[in-house]
């Protein structure tokens, strides 16, 4: 039985990492129907900027703040320099632009930082906590707690504030949103900045566990995207559920079936779920009027 709890804890920790990345996809998708494939790069930036600022002698909390600011500035630049000039283009074109941006950011990080792996000290020590026979890294609590806080913030923002409602309105129908007086350009910029901030925070929280390097974003974006699809694109709770489920599938797959096929196992389950429910577990069923 202690094995079971160890797998559970492993799964929840990796799952929370995926959930944080998936969460970043949600905001931009809600505002613009665009899947921002540069999301993984913001996670990388959050980690890398913190590592390098911390190494330069900046205290950790300040370094983390700097990292979030850098992420947000780059997220806004991504919008103003690449997405806004292409307004009117289809969502697919915009998605391709974000893929280009992710390659650019990765290449730039390789030059600005370096090609090595880096770590951050865990926020509250490295001594594992024993729970029900499982050893848990204290940082896991930070990741899981951080995810919970961000989901809550995002949920409150989208459902309880006027600005959040404007984001949802923009997502539902950009033209109609503009007719009722919503400045959709500002909303989109806000979404990109916000998702970059979420990515940056995610990068800071997970780096003590996962380590970071200039290309760490690629796989995280892929797994985060899979998690977001599984949970239902655009729903913050779905992103979290999808992320945790993916993490648990991987951990239990590796633990009880075979570590060689753990990724295959997770993706087979995702395919099966999407086959049965194409909109994901918590996704809104889209109805198109012909």
């Amino acid at each position, binding site marked *: 039985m202690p*094995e079971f709890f*160890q*797998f559970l*804890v*492993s*799964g929840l*920790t*990796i799952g929370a*990492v995926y959930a944080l990345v998936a969460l970043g996809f949600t905001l931009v998708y809600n505002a613009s129907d665009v899947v921002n494939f540069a999301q993984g790069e913001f996670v990388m930036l959050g980690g890398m900027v913190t590592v390098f600022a911390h190494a330069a002698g900046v205290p950790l909390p300040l370094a983390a703040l700097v990292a979030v600011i850098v992420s947000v500035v780059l997220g806004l630049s991504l919008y103003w320099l690449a997405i806004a000039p292409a307004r009117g283009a289809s969502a697919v074109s915009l998605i391709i632009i974000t893929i280009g941006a992710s390659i650019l950011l990765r290449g730039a990080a390789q030059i600005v930082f370096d*090609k*090595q*792996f*880096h*770590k951050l000290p865990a926020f509250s020590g*490295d001594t*594992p906590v024993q729970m029900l026979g499982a*050893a848990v*890294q204290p940082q896991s609590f930070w990741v899981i707690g951080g995810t919970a806080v961000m989901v809550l913030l995002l949920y409150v923002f989208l459902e309880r504030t006027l600005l959040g409602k404007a984001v949802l309105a923009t997502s539902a129908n950009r033209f109609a949103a503009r007719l009722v007086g919503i400045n959709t350009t500002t909303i989109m910029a806000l979404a990109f900045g916000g998702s970059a901030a979420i990515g940056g925070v995610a990068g800071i929280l*997970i780096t003590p*566990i*996962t*380590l970071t*390097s200039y290309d*760490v974003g*690629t*796989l995280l974006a892929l797994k985060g995207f899979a998690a977001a699809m599984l949970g239902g694109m655009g729903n913050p709770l779905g992103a979290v559920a999808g992320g945790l489920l993916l993490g648990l599938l*991987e*951990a*239990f797959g*590796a*633990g009880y079936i075979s*570590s*060689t096929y*753990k*990724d295959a196992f997770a993706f087979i389950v995702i395919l099966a779920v999407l086959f049965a429910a194409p909109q994901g577990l918590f996704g809104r069923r889209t109805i198109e009027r012909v």
Partner: protein
Amino acid sequence: MTCHSHFKSLAIAAAVALPLSGLSIYSPALAQQTVKIGSVLSVTGPASFLGEPEDKTLRMYVDKINAVGGVAGKKIELVIYDDGGDANKARTFATRLIEDDKVAAMVGGSTTGTTMAMIPVFEEAQVPFISLAGAIEVVDPVRKFIFKTPHTDKMACEKIFENLKQRNFTKVAMISGTDGFGASMRAQCVKVAPTYGVQIVAEETYGPRDSDMTAQLTKIKGVAGVQAVVNPGFGQGPAIVTRNYAQLGMSATPLYQSHGVASKSFIELAGPAAEGVRLPAAALLVGDKLPDGDPQKKVVVDYKQTFEATAKQPVSTFGGHAYDGLYIMVEAMKRANSTDAKKVRDEIEKTKGFVGTGGIVTMSPTDHLGLDLSAFRMLEVKGGDWTLLPPGT
């Protein structure tokens, strides 16, 4: 296609026309003074951590050799192409080195993939090629013109198992990365384990980008009778394995890493969890800790100082492989007192007792690597640094 043949006829026209121009008078003279050594390295791209130090090392030492008059009365002209880690590009550049640059010899090939793609080109052109790639496939089976300098993963397995045998451990668990390095070394370890009386009682794998290996390690923890755990892997994976290993409180069972993590960054990344981890590594890593009588001490300390002073970055074993390759080639040219490809090849094969950064190289017609297990030193992490394990412990 037509475009291509146009170019070809243009090139022929130019070749015919050139000797008539005044420029050509100088070119034969120049050709006599220099010998071209070619290289194709993965300076950029995913394998840049190999190609970058190799590139710097070659440039650095060719300048040094030229400063003291070159080799066999000729200055070395280095021609380096960057394949970006792409085997197709490597092959194209190899052809260019042979057909356009007409190199006398080749030292390069950062990865096994690029090397294997280039081998046929050099075999066909009969130009000696010293590869810097790790896998044993490069020199097994032996090909007439192909040599290599880095030790193989098979040797790393043997070194680890030799140590296990000394400690009377017979039951081990393996957790391997599924990347090329991890998969290849895992296969070699499984193959040589019976020779050392070692039984592999549990086997797990992880993806090269995985960020948590506690599930796999928990499974190993549950297997009765495991006396040691071996982790063939590369990059950040082994560092995470080591951290998770400590997290799960498994440190009482010795953990062996491979030469794939033999850089200071492993200790940094794994932190205190790395204490007590053992691994086989080249002497270069512990140059300053070698006893004064060690035959490799001078070479590795000199190389480390030269590289770090010029490149302003910490030395890596990969650059060391390029150093060894270049000097094996240059010494062969000196002994042959010629840069003729076939004479040089014969002399490379006769390399005997060459002291390089990777070990002491003695080649033969059946061994185009020329290293034995003494090339590896068994290290243990103690107090946040490597320490040399005295033989027999």
